[in-house]
């Protein structure tokens, strides 16, 4: 059994359902991100794991112990809040020591642990300062130290970096990940920043409107999105209508034949949606690019390493093509006819899940 097991958890606030049906299994030491747009229920999931909210249904099991009905203070979890939430009346040391103090840990041991934590977060000299005397990045490090000082079983992070400016955000996220790896602690990290989620996680849980859309490794959710939402929320994708012609993986787009790189199981044919990344398309033939579509160039934006070409397919459907490197030397003329070339493995058939059921 996995270290953290969240099963069929649901939460409504009055008539509004914040989390519809959430399940996740995480291994010891795993770093899992919850990724989704604002209001999709990420924080609510985290708060249910922490015990700040009671799920309407489902269960939370940590290391074999069912904690669903346990109060937060008995769960041994560490949480880092978006707003840091440091205790303003205590110094940095006081904040880090707080959890050990209320647990009745001996003074000498507290002092040793506080010192160790201050070293770990790289602020060995700032133990005597008050939170108002720290920068946002420093406050967030202290919040992390405070959370891990109690040796929690799980570390919960609710957009811990989003209040910081872009440069610190990137360096602090690397640091955070290094500390997590060093301690081997299971971490659940909430973010609405896809780059953050892809860069840090073992696995990403993509959420939308209270539902789990897909759970997978960063390359999995990027390259094989299962739903139109995942395809467009993680990176940029052209989501196009298509017809399934047969179980061998042959499709058609407005009459033009296309092929997937795999056979289909349990699909009888009919209308479907497919995703195609702009950077997987070229305007010239290349090795293995057996799929082709006729297009008309609408406009071109040159951005240096990338040129973004807007094209029109089948006279009405807009799509994006990203040209890279040498391909940006000679750009297509707006209004000219062109052909899109791409490989079968670049084409991803999407689920049309019916959620009402």
């Amino acid at each position, binding site marked *: 059994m996995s270290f953290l097991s969240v099963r069929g958890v649901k939460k409504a606030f009055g008539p509004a359902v914040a989390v519809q049906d959430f399940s996740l299994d995480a291994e010891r030491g795993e770093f899992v991100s919850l990724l989704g747009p604002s209001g999709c229920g990420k924080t609510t999931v985290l708060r249910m794991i*922490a015990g700040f909210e009671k799920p309407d249904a489902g269960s939370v099991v940590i290391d074999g112990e069912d904690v669903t009905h346990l109060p937060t*203070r008995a769960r041994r979890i560490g*949480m880092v809040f978006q707003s840091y*939430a*440091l205790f*303003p*009346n205590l110094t940095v040391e006081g904040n880090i020591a707080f*959890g050990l103090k*209320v647990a009745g840990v001996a003074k000498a041991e507290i002092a040793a642990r506080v010192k160790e934590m201050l070293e770990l977060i790289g602020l060995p000299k700032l133990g005597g300062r008050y939170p108002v005397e720290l920068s946002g990045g420093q406050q967030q490090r202290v919040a992390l130290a405070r*959370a891990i000082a109690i040796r929690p079983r799980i570390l919960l992070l609710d957009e811990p970096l989003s209040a910081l400016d872009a440069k610190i955000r990137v360096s602090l996220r690397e640091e955070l990940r290094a500390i997590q790896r060093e301690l081997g602690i299971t971490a659940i990290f909430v973010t609405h920043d896809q780059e953050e989620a892809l860069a840090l996680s073992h696995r990403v849980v993509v959420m939308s409107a209270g539902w789990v859309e897909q759970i997978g490794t960063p390359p999995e959710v990027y390259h094989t999105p299962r739903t139109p939402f995942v395809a467009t929320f993680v990176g940029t994708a052209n989501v196009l209508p298509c017809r399934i012609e047969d179980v061998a993986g042959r499709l058609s787009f407005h009459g033009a034949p296309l092929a997937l790189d795999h056979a289909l199981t349990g699909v009888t044919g009919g209308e479907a949606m497919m995703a195609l990344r702009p950077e997987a398309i070229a305007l010239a033939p290349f090795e293995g690019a057996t799929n082709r579509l006729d297009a008309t160039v609408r406009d071109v934006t040159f951005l240096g390493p990338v040129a973004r070409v807007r094209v029109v397919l089948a006279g009405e459907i807009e799509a994006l093509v990203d040209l890279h490197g040498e391909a940006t030397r000679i750009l297509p003329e707006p209004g000219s006819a062109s052909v899109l070339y791409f490989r079968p493995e670049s084409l991803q058939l999407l689920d049309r899940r019916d959620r009402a059921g």
Partner: protein
Amino acid sequence: MGIGPFAVFALLFLVLPTAGLFIGAFQDAEGNFTLANIAGLMTPIVANAFRQSIIVSGASAILGAVIGLAIAMALAGPGIPRFIRDGLLTLSGVASNFAGVPLAFAFLATIGRLGLVTILLRDLLGIDIYAAGFTILGTTGLTLTYLYFQLPLMVLLIMPAVDGLKKEWGEASAMLGATPWQHAWRITAPILFPSFAGAALLLFANGFGAVATAFALTGSFINLVTILLFAEIRGEVLHDPNLGYALAFGMVAITAVCNIVYLRLRAFSARRFR
């Protein structure tokens, strides 16, 4: 230049009168320098007046501060509808300014010897509070009356600090394994303390200066500084206006100290608990 009118106002109604007081406190009736007035503050009747004032102001400040804090915390809690909170705060704004003769009359009409509540308690429940030693003209009665404006003033003064308590602090405590009591004692209490102490001092100063209520309620039945001051200046007892200045000077000094400490505590809170 925007503060020009304010500066003129402060000069005319605050600085000049205070300076006049200060000078008057060190002069005799002929205008010669003397320390006799200050020494006069030590005479039994005056010292007693200061003691009475401190008791009434102190009691009403402490009670008002404790109960006011409890009310403010209840108002800030979850599940209090917006309109109840807003309504009570508006009411507090009005009630904290409700002092003087109308307040005194209201209290006399309620729990005076022939007040409505006094009579109802006696006739319906058989409890005769006056027979039990209560009198609105005594220390307890005056304290009770002062509470009427002290308590709402406390609610207004402490509300911002209570609102400033973040929900996440409680959650962080719980996450770190603290019980709600440990959180209250180690986090909430230290954060609120400067605001609480400052507000209580302000209530004390406020009570100290509340002359009209005391005067209207008791006449000169109870010996408060403010009443003695009236008497001195109007010449009812000893006719020594300069002793009156010294009395006022003593009052201003106590009030000023309270205000300065209040401001310092408030600045501390604003700096650390921002």
